[in-house]
């Protein structure tokens, strides 16, 4: 009898473990198509890039394994560091100007009782214009011979800035255009977060005699922190991937004043016939983005709302 019970128990346990195993497998089964796709389009090319970065491939001849030579060259490449410097400038601009601007405008729009949709749509509009189209339009606006400067000169302004021609300001001119497109998107994100804030806290603050600035700073802003942190993280990662506006408007010039890592990588891969070296730049970009994600991950573990 007791041995029968043991057998029955064992059978039940086996059935349970099989059931648990099946239960555990089901989510993986549903995830498998997506996982397969990710392996195919992300992991595959990443491994391919890693392998290429260890070769001297010129895009046409048989690649030759050269170990870490490309990485050594990268560490002593002044053009790479100039581009990296521009990326940090770009990041500094985008982590401040459009976010602050979007925050202020979103707060103001959230207070609009009538026609809020009109403002939301209008400010979001640049986001739906094709990047290349808006970059081309702005390049015409900045054109020293037929754009904004001709109007300013007619109005009597002299020494007008050479928006895309002056190495000292060209990066900021392009960033202004990208920012013009980007802030509307941020505004919509922040506005959505604003709609989810606890209104009773604001009412309590009003009852306590807080003014509007104090309410914004001490009551609303802390509730927006998760959204703002997410925006900050995405902006920092996207800053390393910035490419389109610079490529269309200045192609990295004048000189290398607007060269970013991405445009430099493109040139090395397709113009300088060095896809092997370009792969090492691509991996450097990925590592930099990884560091940002890692830092934000640590912050989250330390209890930051994100």
């Amino acid at each position: 009898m007791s041995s029968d019970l043991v057998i029955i128990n064992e059978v039940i346990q086996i059935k349970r473990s099989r059931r648990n195993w099946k239960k555990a497998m089901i989510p993986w089964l549903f995830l498998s198509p997506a996982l397969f796709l990710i392996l195919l389009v992300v992991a595959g090319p990443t491994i391919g890039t890693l392998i290429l970065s260890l070769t001297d491939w010129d895009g046409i001849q048989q690649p030759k394994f050269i170990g870490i030579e490309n990485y050594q060259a990268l560490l002593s490449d002044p053009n790479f560091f100039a581009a990296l410097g521009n990326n940090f400038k770009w990041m500094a601009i985008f982590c401040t100007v459009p976010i602050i601007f979007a925050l202020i405008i979103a707060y103001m729009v959230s207070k609009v009782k009538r026609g809020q949709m009109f403002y939301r749509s209008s400010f979001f509009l640049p986001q739906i214009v094709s990047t290349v189209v808006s970059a081309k339009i702005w390049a015409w606006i900045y054109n020293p011979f037929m754009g904004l400067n001709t109007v300013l000169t007619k109005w009597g302004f002299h020494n007008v800035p050479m928006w895309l021609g002056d190495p000292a300001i060209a990066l900021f001119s392009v960033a202004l255009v990208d920012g013009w497109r980007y802030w509307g998107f941020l505004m919509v994100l922040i506005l959505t977060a604003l709609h989810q804030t606890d209104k009773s806290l604001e009412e309590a603050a009003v009852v306590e005699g807080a003014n509007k600035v104090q309410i914004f700073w001490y009551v609303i802003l802390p509730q927006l922190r998760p959204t703002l942190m997410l925006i900050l993280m995405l902006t920092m990662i996207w800053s390393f991937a910035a490419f389109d506006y610079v490529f269309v408007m200045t192609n990295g010039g004048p000189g290398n004043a607007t060269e970013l890592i991405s445009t430099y990588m493109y040139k090395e891969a397709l113009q300088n016939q060095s896809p092997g070296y370009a792969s090492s730049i691509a991996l450097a970009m990925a590592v930099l983005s990884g560091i940002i994600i890692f830092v934000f991950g640590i912050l989250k573990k330390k209890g930051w709302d994100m």
Partner: protein
Amino acid sequence: MKVRKWLPVLAASFLLLSGCSSSSSSSSSDKDKVEISLYANNQGGTEYLDYLQNDVIKGFEAKHPNIKIKLVKNSDPEGLAKQQLAAGGGPDVIALNGPTSAQDFAAANYLLPLDEYAEKYKWEEDYYPWAYQTVQNNGKQIALPGSYETLVVYYNRDMFKQNGWEVPTSYEELEELNKKMADKDIIPFAFGSSDFKAANEWWLSVAFNETVGADGFKKVLTGETPWNSPEMKESIEKLNNLWTKGYINSKQSQAITLDDATSLFLSGKAAMKMEGTWLLSTFKGSPPPFDWDVFIMPSWKDGVEANLPLALGGAVGINKNSKHPDETAEFIDWMHSKQNAEKLLEMGGFLPINVLEAKNLDPHVQKSFDLLNEAMENNQTGYAAWTYWPPSAETFAWSNIESVWLGQIDTDTYLDKLQEAFEEDKQKGKLFKFND
């Protein structure tokens, strides 16, 4: 009632069946057809693509009903072919950017040696020897040369007449003329490169060839004279002088595109434009609203003869993996036949074919054609970047000259690094192989 209910299904079935039958009948007729693929871009203007489609392809298909030419338009035909060739595919006709690319493709074993076809079609007799030899590798014919081109100065003749200006014959005269133009608030040279930085090499080609001379510059390209020699430094300093004085697009060439620069010339805001002979076809399609002409850039140094930097703007080869090499060879032979070359000539495109009859040519095209031929006969041709310069040195040269103009690096550093890039090319065996 029942029939009515099933009518749409029946009709759909009928359509499906008839569709199937028609497609199967067409596929059976297509079965015998050979398809040859060719990639092309519109860098030679839409006129060039029209010519390719209407004259070359349709003409060939009319002669060979069993062959169909599939033209694929792509902004970078060579780049696309390169990717596909690496994967074992690619078009039958490989459109190459020039002799340097042809050498690279041949070294990678992507091109079919053409010697057998060269003999069959007697290509050696048809082509200018200098052009034909640029697309040979280890004694084998690897491609056919494409159009040859040079850099000339287009100028607004009306403006010159009105102001009593003369075509300059020396660097000093050129500088003086530029000053007169700038004093009148006229941009001397329209030039923009923000969308195509490689255009900077047009100026570099002119500066080196006109200051050092064609023979002297050939010594630089073969490694006899270094790129950072005093003569080469003088070339860059002279170019820098023109740029920093605002004579080349008011120091804003880096901020505007090639098309913007052409607009400045066409609108009369600029008096001259230094560009390749490919611009002739653009001006033929949409002529400037004033009387214009071309002249050869004068010599930039006493004792150096003015010359025309010569280049091959392309080449065509046959994919080694092509399933129809015979038909493809027949097609490229037709592409460069006398008949098609003459049509291209009317548009301002110069194929290096012997005994072209230049009939009823546009006077500007005729003049440029004559200038080029005269220069070739008198050995007054120089070496343009996109044909004769090795790849790393070429890319470094055009991508960094702006930094010299803008004062970000000095001439010595620029030339030292250019020499380093050249040494790298030399080490990789990528120098142009001159065939004396």
